[in-house]
């Protein structure tokens, strides 16, 4: 086994420790040792590296992983980083982790079992991969005599399928949303409306349905039994069309019953945002049915095609409870608030614990904020109910590993949605809040604590019912996770970038990065890593903990501020996350945004970007310099010269941070949040409530440009700027020591305007103090442009209310405006061309090979990156991909096999995005006029 000595992520004691129970002095504890387990990890992503680490820390020596082709041969430099710490004999190649079709999936399962047999792994760990919730996979492993580290197939079937879960929920007094959960049974009953018809059907198809004779069983339940028998025999008893018609009728009935509300269609096999659609009109439902089934790969014969229809809760908050059991007992480990998401993909997950609420309530009471206290009390009650229901549910399905009990919350109401019968991406949020204490039933002083959910999964898998019911032990009060994704400024997936370097984790930073930060074990140099985007856009999970939610938020924001990723064509959502985290941090981390918060927020940042791009800062700075020098002309020549000098010495001090804020609107958003209480805007003019020198220093800090010794000069404040700033700061600090306590910035400013000395200064010193004050403030006027941008786009209209809800201005909810602002953030690739020409000379082919369909034909819409044609040059078939998206209007080369010249037109196209080029002079004038409008209020 290779030790990860060059892995900077393994230094954090919060997630790394010696977990070898076999080393305990207690015999009882030793009996739970897991070091002899041989585990094959069959998933990828951050969980793979985590599982390798945890299992090794438990003392296991035989831990294997799979490596797929997409992680090894599709792109160079995309090789799974975990290989750097793996012995090649524990690395097993496989085409992919899940298979694209049902047949392939079965093949993969067989391959995994074969690998286990050949290399003597008795256990399989599937993390949160697609396989983890596949009951047929788990059943196949069980049949093969292997142990699945995760919920057994009985739990998966009882809790994993959404329809079944909902029935279990109702039976266990769990709060559920109005809707329908047995669309397939009802479709069947429409075709075979009574017991006789069903019996006939069963006979004709040779199905085994023992419940047939049970007259007490409701007809719909009986239909479910018939369906289950059909799945087992790989038979379909109705067509997808029939199902679609039925679901359409059911949808219409529900809409009639709840007029004006929207509903959600969900496939039972979906999850993670897949296999769901929202509708408000029953007419659109039938085509959605097929779409959704396709998405969850359930269109094959014999697949469970059941779907749920549920009332869509509009002001949704997404909460979930971590549960854990061994089949006999089930405990809840608090919850997670996952409301900050986009397109159903979670971005930030925050712990919710009873202890956390209790402390926050007490704090709100002490601060006299009874409104907030009441809101938090209501939330605490909801959490308590959810935890109790989750435990009941877990016990009912005999949960024998970890699972997540997912709810949506609307006001003081919560509704059970589904159970994810697997470890979740965000599981660490819970394990950082609670450890589990397993005590010897015969001796309470004999116990061991488990700090990792992956560890507990392995323990349960090996020791099952021997494990006594644990108690939960508080670790940190709060934890938070953010998902670092390879997405651009507008959160569109942006794959293909190469990471060249990543700053080492800071103190307290928990970084699950798939091993990307593991250095080359030989040279200790960072290895380039291509974010190939073959799976999803997630790069890493970053977590922090705290004594309070505020502290955990502050820490994770600090991690984001200091994370430095450098690379080629590299785009991540770090800047976005920093901006949005700062939004909450500077208002209230107990804010309760709905799942709809992110897109309007992003739209607002787009507005900021649009306005910032319309300001010429060079010009503005020159104008300010000229203005201040002219204003000083009332003094003597010496004053004018000195003023000019001062401005010249501040060129980089002021322009550098401003340029960075203007370039990155997410930072501008963060700045505006952080400083929102530092100024007033009256009549369009900015009145500072805090010394702009301090604001400037804070700006350097925000941009991670503090004076950090050892960092390259280009990555920190320039030395001369640092000198100026520290001199100014120490001047004002010493001045503050002389002036009356509690004096505001405005008052200080006024005092310094007077020629008569204040603050007991003598007449000799006072002029020097005034001169220094004027000098240090010179040019800082330009900072006021930032609040003015905010005022112009009405940035602060996105507000937090007293009841912790968020008011979203209606303009930010307009979808065409949202699209427009997204394009401001990331202009789409545009082209002037109305044709696509041959990228090289050679023989043209429109399809992959004879007998294959053409890549494109007349009328085809193609996206950027889609293959368009092949050019054969010297017996090499080069596939050529679209550089932009558009539609084919005409195929200019009629047949394949024709020789074309380089640059010869191949297709007539209409690009999706046409360049509307603004005349440079018009643009220049527009920006000038706009900048002047700012300057008019500034000077």
């Amino acid at each position, binding site marked *: 086994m*290779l030790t990860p000595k060059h892995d900077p992520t393994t230094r954090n004691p919060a997630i790394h420790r010696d977990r070898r129970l076999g080393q305990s002095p207690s015999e009882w504890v030793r009996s739970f040792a897991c070091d002899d387990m041989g585990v094959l990890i069959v998933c990828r992503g951050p969980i793979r590296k985590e599982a390798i680490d945890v299992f090794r820390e438990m003392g296991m020596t035989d831990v294997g992983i799979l*490596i797929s*082709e997409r992680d*090894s*041969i599709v*792109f*160079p*430099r995309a*090789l799974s980083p975990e290989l750097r710490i793996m012995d090649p004999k524990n690395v097993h*190649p496989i085409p992919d982790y899940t298979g694209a079709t049902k047949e392939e999936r079965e093949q993969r399962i067989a391959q995994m079992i074969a690998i286990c047999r050949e290399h003597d792994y008795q256990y399989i760990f599937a993390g949160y991969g697609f396989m983890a919730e596949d009951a047929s996979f788990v059943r196949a492993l069980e049949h093969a005599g292997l142990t699945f580290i995760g919920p057994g197939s009985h739990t998966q079937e009882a809790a994993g399928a959404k329809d079944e879960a909902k029935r279990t929920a109702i039976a266990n007094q769990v709060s559920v949303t109005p809707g329908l959960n047995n669309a397939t049974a009802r479709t069947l009953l429409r075709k075979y409306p009574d017991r006789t018809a069903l019996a006939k059907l069963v006979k004709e198809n040779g199905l085994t349905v023992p419940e047939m004779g049970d007259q007490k069983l409701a007809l719909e339940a009986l239909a479910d039994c018939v369906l289950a028998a059909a799945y087992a025999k790989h038979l379909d008893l109705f067509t997808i069309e029939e199902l679609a018609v039925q679901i359409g009728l059911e949808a219409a009935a529900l809409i009639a019953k709840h007029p004006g509300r929207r509903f959600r269609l969900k496939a039972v096999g979906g999850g993670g945002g897949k296999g769901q659609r929202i509708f408000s009109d029953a007419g659109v439902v039938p085509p959605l049915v097929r779409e959704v089934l396709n998405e969850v790969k359930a269109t094959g014969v014999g697949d469970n095609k059941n779907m749920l229809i549920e009332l869509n809760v509009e002001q949704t908050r997404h909460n979930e409870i971590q549960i854990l059991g061994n089949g006999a007992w089930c405990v809840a480990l608090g919850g997670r608030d996952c409301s900050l998401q986009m397109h159903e993909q979670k971005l930030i997950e925050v712990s919710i614990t009873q202890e956390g609420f209790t402390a926050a309530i007490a704090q709100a009471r002490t601060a006299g904020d009874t409104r907030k206290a009441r809101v938090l009390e209501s939330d605490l009650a909801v959490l308590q109910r959810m935890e109790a229901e989750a435990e009941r549910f877990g016990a009912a399905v005999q949960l024998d590993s970890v699972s997540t009990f997912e709810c949506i919350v609307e006001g003081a109401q919560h509704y059970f949605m589904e159970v994810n019968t697997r470890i979740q991406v965000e599981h660490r949020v819970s394990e950082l809040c609670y450890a589990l204490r397993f005590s010897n039933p015969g001796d309470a002083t004999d116990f061991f604590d488990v700090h990792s959910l992956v560890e507990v999964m392995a323990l349960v898998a090996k020791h099952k019912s021997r494990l006594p019911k644990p108690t939960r032990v508080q670790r940190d009060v709060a934890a938070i996770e953010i998902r670092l994704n390879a997405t651009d400024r507008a959160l569109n997936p942006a794959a293909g970038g190469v990471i060249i370097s990543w700053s080492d984790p800071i103190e307290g930073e928990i970084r699950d990065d798939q091993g990307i930060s593991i250095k*080359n*074990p*030989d*040279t200790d*140099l960072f*290895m380039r890593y291509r974010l190939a985007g073959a799976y999803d856009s997630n790069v890493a999970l970053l977590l922090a903990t705290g004594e309070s939610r505020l502290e955990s938020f502050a820490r994770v924001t600090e991690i984001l501020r200091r994370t430095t990723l*450098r690379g*080629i064509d590299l785009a991540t959502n770090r800047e976005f996350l920093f901006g949005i985290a700062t939004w909450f941090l500077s208002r209230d981390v107990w804010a309760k945004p709905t799942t709809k918060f992110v897109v309007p927020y992003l739209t607002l940042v787009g507005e900021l970007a649009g306005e910032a791009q319309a300001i010429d800062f060079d010009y503005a700075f020159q104008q300010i310099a000229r203005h201040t020098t002219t204003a*000083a002309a009332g*003094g003597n020549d*010496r*004053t004018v010269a*000195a*003023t000019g*000098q*001062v401005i*010249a*010495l501040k*060129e980089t001090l002021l322009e550098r941070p401003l340029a960075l804020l203007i370039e990155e609107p997410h930072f501008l958003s963060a700045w505006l949040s952080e400083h929102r209480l530092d100024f007033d805007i009256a009549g369009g003019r900015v009145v500072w409530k805090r010394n702009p020198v301090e604001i400037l220093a804070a700006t350097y800090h925000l941009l991670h440009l503090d004076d950090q010794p050892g960092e*390259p*000069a*280009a*990555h920190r404040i320039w*030395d*001369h700027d640092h*000198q*100026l700033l520290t*001199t*100014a700061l*120490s*001047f004002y600090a010493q001045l503050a020591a002389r002036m009356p306590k509690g004096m505001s910035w405005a008052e200080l400013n006024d005092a310094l305007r007077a020629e008569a000395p204040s603050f007991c200064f003598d007449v000799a*010193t006072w*002029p*020097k*103090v*005034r*001169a*220094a004050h004027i*000098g240090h403030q*010179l040019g800082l006027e330009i900072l006021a442009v930032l609040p003015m941008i905010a005022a112009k786009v009405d940035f602060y209209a996105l507000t937090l209310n007293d009841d912790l809800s968020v008011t979203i201005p209606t303009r930010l909810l307009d979808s065409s405006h949202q699209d427009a602002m997204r394009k401001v953030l990331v202009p789409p690739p545009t082209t002037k061309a109305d044709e696509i020409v041959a990228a*090289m000379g050679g023989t043209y082919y429109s399809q*992959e090979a004879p007998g*294959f369909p053409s890549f494109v034909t007349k009328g085809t819409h193609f996206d950027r990156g889609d293959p368009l044609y092949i050019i*054969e*040059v*010297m*017996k*090499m*078939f*080069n596939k050529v991909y679209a550089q932009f998206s558009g539609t084919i209007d005409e195929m200019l080369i009629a047949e394949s096999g024709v020789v074309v010249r380089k640059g010869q037109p191949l297709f007539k196209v209409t690009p999706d995005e046409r360049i509307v080029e603004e005349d440079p002079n018009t643009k220049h004038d527009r920006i000038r006029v706009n900048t002047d409008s700012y300057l008019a209020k500034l000077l």
Partner: protein
Amino acid sequence: MATRGKLKSKRNEPIPAATSPVTPTLDNPLADPSPVADPHAEVIPTGAYDQTLLQAEELRRRPYAAAGTLQIIRQHAKGRMTVWERIDVLQDKDSRPAVLYQNWGRNLDGASIVTAVVKIRGRDVALYGHDFTVRAGSMDATNGRKLANLIYLAGKRGIPLIGMNDSAGAFVPAGIGGLDGYAEAFTALRKISGVVPSIMCMFGFNAGGGAYLPRQGSFMIQPANTFFGLTGPVVVKSALGEDVTPDDLGGPKVHGASGVSDITVADEVAALRTAQRLLGYLPDSNKVAPPFESTSDPMDRRTTEIDTLLRKAFNSPTGFNTPLDVTILIQQVCDHGDYFEIQPDRARNAITAFGRLAGNVVGFVANNSAVASGQIDIDAAYKIARFVRFCSIYNVPVIFMEDTTGFLPGRDQESRGIVQAGRAMLDAIIDLHTPRILLIIRNAFGGAYAAFNSYAVGADIVLALPTTRVAVMGTAGKEYTYKKELQELRASAAQRLDELIAARVETGSPPEVAAQAAEKEVGDWLRAKEAEFNQRYEKELMNPREALSLGSISEIVMPTDLRAVLGRNLAFLLRRYEPGPWQSIQREFH
């Protein structure tokens, strides 16, 4: 830090003391008197000795203070670091530069160029950098001599050279002196070329001598937002009337594509870090081997992924004609998959890269069928020639990976001199005197096969994957191999045509219609028959058999064993290789 001292001494200088209440200052009138760091400093130095020390201290500081804060701000405003700041990035954290000739120059200021010996990852490296804040880093006789001295020192002591170029060119007031200065530096750099390797970082805006001088070095690294070239856009405009931006004239895109810049990067820090990383593959001099790093990656690691890649490519609908990215093969062979590409922006139909195998630095030269079919064109040939020659001089063994149908034909290539370029590549390969292995991946046709490190041109060992197709040419070779049979076939086609027309006319078709239909039918038939000959040719001749039988290939290697077999062969060759200068007769070209 040096830079701090400079600033402290200059801080308040440009601001006159406040005499009027509104004359702004940038100091802190409330500051405590500076705390005394040196207990002896309380004694006011009055003696002659103390005065001498004070003056000496002032002299020592002068090059750091250089032209003052405003000049530094001007440099920073362009997003560029000062020379001292660049040195700080480059050298080891706990080290200090040993500055040479630090007060050379009429003003005792170092004459706008810093020469020093620094530590980089524990190694001594000779370093120079222009100080753009003084006279725009321009060159005169003084700093030309100074630079030449440093370069000679590097050659004499056998340490690598790094240059941080940021110079406006010759110092015009110095007249011919500036030109002489450049000439001296040119000469020195040529004299150490082939003795010690050098890396040139191109910062700022370098024209004329400022571009030629660094290109005499081994590798050039160019960040974005920089320019170098023969002349700047202003001269181009006045001489030719062409409007061109500096970036389009001599930016990293231009030079990266032509190979004038070996590596292009995002910014100055990236350039310096890339220089450090590149240095990790370079020896101190031509007398020693490049740095060895023992590896934890087992040498018997099976290269299963290469097997999968080839299987997927060759079993795909386009079969043996499917392009594949050869860098994946290089990656799978190297220790921990880590490799460093040289000239990655130029002619990627050929890949040149450094990597390590069992800890030893290896140069990889590979045809890359994923780009322009992997054919060798002029750019690829020069790229390979340059890299191979470097490896030959600096004791780097080379693994060639061959997969090409040959040199790119055509008027464009001929008129630009493909014959000369191909010859340069061939000569470099013939001359290569370090251990040299050829691995044939797939195609090795004709002249390209002969030139690309075959046994006949001096390979130590030639290995072949089972997919190897060595042949004089591609399927066009059927014309020669099956000449007689093809002649007969075509003759019979003519006969067949006549018969078919006759038959159709007999059944009542008008003659033109009959001829048209018959021609199509015979045409299709003939194409099908010729395709059969293609397949026969591929089967009979496009394989490794003949080359094996003639001893042109030593061994067939299975794709999963590539790392092990290459490692084993290289280990043997390196055991029997004595690093040392390449002594040989000077040939007419290189």
